[in-house]
């Protein structure tokens, strides 16, 4: 099956050369964060950290210099983000903007939109959230109902977005709205907008997740006026644009490295007294890690070469979630720890957090079933 061949891709020396720099930066700046905090991986955020990272030139790496970017290659950015993930840096606040909203604006945005947003993104000061899912539209994204009705000089928006990570702390949302409701095909008649989160009528209400965090939100739009120059790309082309945005969202190394701090903690525990059983278990994890990394690099190479990474990215995300979700179970079986959320050891706290968080890894950014549907299509089954 040639469409599922993962062409090996080596990081060029120029990209590899950045590894030392980012490692030094992390060594200098990560000490305030405990393993438990770092186990949140890219779901944990700190404005101060994002700002320092931006100052050091590690955000907006691919953006043009005129927007505050650094005109680095995709592979250079890859080295930086995998090191951020490997160390559990608190990157959540700027992550979406750097990964997908910035690139989306570079692809489809107007000059004005880019000038307004991108320099702040590259500084690690402007954050974006994703306005796709709605209370009645999860996996069936094309069934969204939030409507943007054309009025003089803009659009009036009514509806609700949900599961919007960090919306309460974000400055902008890239939102998918329905701009025409009488079209026969539900994939048509949608458009993307750049929404200023301070717009009157836009309210983010945090939703507490099962781990007790206030991370994602419900965002309501009540007669919110969005100026017409905030339309991103073409009216009615929202679906195609969203698919290319999802390709950025689904294809990165965060889809197999979200549990990396637990792996680190587990290796630390096992190292004290490795047994045959514990060595086999961590060895298997490392073998799969090494393979997933090769596959992830291959996807990055495809992206760099201008190929569509949607299918390959879906495969890595699906395999990555299996690998990451196995990890708390393996750690539980090997160590037999009894996680104490308040007074436990670092290992117990990390295990306690990842045990809860891991169930979301095959839900967020496209459920396992949706990804496998995409893969099944790649196999010619649908």
């Amino acid at each position: 099956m040639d469409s599922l061949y993962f062409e090996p891709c080596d990081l060029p020396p120029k990209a590899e050369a950045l590894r030392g720099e980012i490692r030094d930066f992390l060594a200098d700046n990560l000490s305030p964060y405990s393993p438990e905090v770092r186990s949140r991986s890219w779901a944990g955020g700190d404005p101060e950290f994002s700002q320092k990272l931006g100052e050091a030139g590690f955000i907006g790496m691919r953006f043009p210099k005129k927007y505050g970017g650094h005109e680095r290659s995709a592979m250079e950015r890859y080295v930086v983000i995998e090191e951020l993930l490997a160390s559990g840096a608190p990157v959540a606040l700027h992550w979406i903007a750097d990964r997908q909203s910035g690139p989306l604006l570079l692809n489809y945005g107007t000059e004005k939109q880019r000038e307004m947003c991108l320099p702040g993104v590259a500084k690690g000061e402007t954050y974006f959230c994703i306005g796709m899912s709605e209370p009645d539209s999860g996996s069936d994204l094309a069934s969204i109902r939030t409507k943007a009705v054309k009025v003089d000089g803009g659009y009036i928006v009514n509806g609700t977005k949900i599961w919007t990570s960090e919306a309460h702390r974000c400055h902008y949302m890239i939102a998918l709205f329905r701009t025409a409701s009488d079209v026969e095909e539900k994939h048509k008649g949608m458009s993307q907008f750049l929404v200023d989160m301070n717009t009157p009528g836009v309210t983010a209400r945090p939703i507490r997740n099962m781990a007790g965090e206030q991370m994602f939100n419900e965002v309501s739009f009540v007669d919110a006026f969005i100026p017409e120059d905030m339309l991103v790309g073409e009216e009615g082309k929202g679906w195609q644009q969203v698919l290319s945005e999802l390709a950025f969202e689904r294809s990165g190394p965060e889809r197999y490295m979200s549990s990396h701090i637990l792996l680190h903690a587990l290796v630390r525990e096992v190292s004290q007294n490795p047994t045959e059983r514990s060595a086999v278990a961590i060895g298997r994890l490392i073998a799969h890690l090494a393979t997933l990394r090769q596959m992830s690099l291959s996807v990055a190479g495809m992206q760099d070469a201008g190929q569509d990474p949607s299918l390959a990215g879906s495969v890595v995300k699906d395999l990555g979630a299996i690998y990451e979700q196995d990890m708390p179970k393996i750690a539980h079986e090997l160590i037999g720890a009894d996680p104490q959320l308040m007074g436990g050891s670092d290992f117990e706290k990390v295990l306690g957090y990842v045990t809860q968080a891991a169930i979301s890894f095959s839900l967020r950014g496209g459920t396992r079933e949706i990804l496998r549907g995409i893969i099944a299509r790649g196999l010619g089954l649908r």
Partner: protein
Amino acid sequence: MSEMRDILNDTVTRLFTDLVTRETFGDAESGTWPDQLWSACVENGLTLALVPEEKGGAGLGWADSFVIARAAGYYGPPVPLVETMLGSWLLAEAGLEIPDSPLTVAPARTDDNLQVSGNTVKGTAKAVPWGRHAGHAVVLTGGQIVLVALNPSKVTEDCNIAREPRDTVVFDNASVIASAATSLPSDGLQVYGAMFRAAQLAGGVSRCLDETVKYAGDRVQFSRPIAKYQAIQQYLAAMAGDMASAGAAAEMAFRAADRGDPRFEVASAKVVTGDAASNATSTGHQVHGAIGFTYEHILQFTTRRLWSWRAEFGAESRWAEEIGRQVAGRGANAFWPDLTARQSGMLA
């Protein structure tokens, strides 16, 4: 893929599509040597793929040879192709002449001890691949590569689950034809044997997926091809993931062999391809239903090979334990830097 690999891929695909059929498997399992198939492998330069051109080989590197090894898994030709590729590479590396016969390697198992004393080899090796058909064995023991002629009277026939010959060979003071020192570790045959089996596993998983996709498209139940049911689609998509990871892992090992000692990548590949084989065989048979459980059906020639190969030259647990002990020994702060350094070509 490079042009060389495209050509190779075309060659092996054509050759094995023509010469490895259901009948070939059946005949081989009844004890018939597929002479035409073997001659075609030799004539197309596959057996000496890794031997330098000046020694009469094709002079391919490991990364290109991966195409052949993977195809050997996809089509499952019932001949010692990968064993001869490995044996001839070992002889060429050691500066020894390569005999004009199918080769095998010994010992295939770590608990079999072969000893060289003077000009003879002593000991018993079990599960020697294709022992009865191999004219010579390439033995790695005591820091030496040793070429020995195999005496059919000393070979006791046995086989793996796929009924591929895995014979017991008694080296009863067998004469050494040639020998030379090697820098390979004492279990070097395990490492390179596992590398070839990993490629075969990747190929076999891919075949299993292709057969299963085809069957699901043909088989109609409740008035629709079963491929149209989401339950089946989800199975097949998961299998595609296993196919992709097995391929990536095995290719990673072959590429590492071009750069130096591939031990870590081989260990990883044997774990990942073995895991993939376990998943794919289960799913493949589940989708095929009862027909896949019959000897008549083609699927089982692949799945029985996968169960055999995942165990040969070290099961998943054997290689996982080696990786795990290494990682534990290096400590929690080392495994990520070690991995990135290795995968960047800076072999640790």
